[in-house]
């Protein structure tokens, strides 16, 4: 088994309102920036082991589908790093 690092970025779907993003946009405007809009999300970094890169990518997608994102309201993307020490792809 090799070590991998998956970075899963979860964000609200384009058609779902993001009140947190709207609030941040207002705060950035208060700082003087001409901000059109802001979308917030979260980044989840998972260190785990898998037999090879394909299995690691499959596992990361399964994590996203089953728990890390709610497909009703969120999209997510995975970038995979590793085996440990090699750059993210």
């Amino acid at each position, binding site marked *: 088994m090799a070590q991998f690092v998956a970075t899963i970025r979860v964000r609200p779907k384009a058609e779902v309102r993001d*009140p*947190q993003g709207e609030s941040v946009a207002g705060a950035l405007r208060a700082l003087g920036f001409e901000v059109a809009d802001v979308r917030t999300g979260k980044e989840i970094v998972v260190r785990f082991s898998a037999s090879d890169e394909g299995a690691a990518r499959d596992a990361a997608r399964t994590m996203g589908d089953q*728990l890390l994102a*709610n497909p*009703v309201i969120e999209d997510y993307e995975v970038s995979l790093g590793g085996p440990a020490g090699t750059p993210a792809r």
Partner: protein
Amino acid sequence: MTVAILLYPGTWSERDFAHAFSLLGIEHEIVWHADADLRRFDAAVIPGGFSYGDHLRAGAIAKLSPATRELQRAAAEGMPILGSCNGFQILCEAGLLPGALVRNTHLEFRCDWVRMRVESEDTPFTAGLGGEILRMPIAHGEGNWVADPETLARVESAGQVVVRYVDERGAATPEANPNGSTANIAGIRNEAGNVLGLMPHPERCVEDLLGGTDGRKMLAGLGATESARLLRI
């Protein structure tokens, strides 16, 4: 009739439900989620709270409990299931109800009283209450129900909107909506009608001391279900 009141780590309203059912003379038992065997119960309640600290998303981790499989089986067999507040969020995360609950549009945690109109009598909890305006407390930061346009249209046309936030005159205005929920939706049911999720807390308005008694009308429905069953026998 014995009602299972599911307890997850972080649930905070299970004793309120137990108290409410005691007042109504309905047998009940608080059941730890991981041990939940619903076969010996006639109905189930998922109370409010912050299961697993609301980490990741409200209800996201609770849906992985063994209780979810039990709830899915019991729901398919027609068991009355009520989820309030975090219980509603768990039912949506577990796929037992459509849509999802996201952050209130104003970003505030709202602890208040709301009015809602009963728009579907096709649940064990609202039979005979059609058109009534109920007054109940809310306490949540993520009660804004959302769904894609197709799901919303289906839920509306199938009469699955059970309660909708309204003002004292019965109008579903933006001012009467405490969290920005789509179409002022406060609670929905599944297609069969035995599963109801809503953000307000019926268990917290069951005696005058608490400021209202409308919760009794909804929870007493479980006793009525039992009566109907006995009459059929």
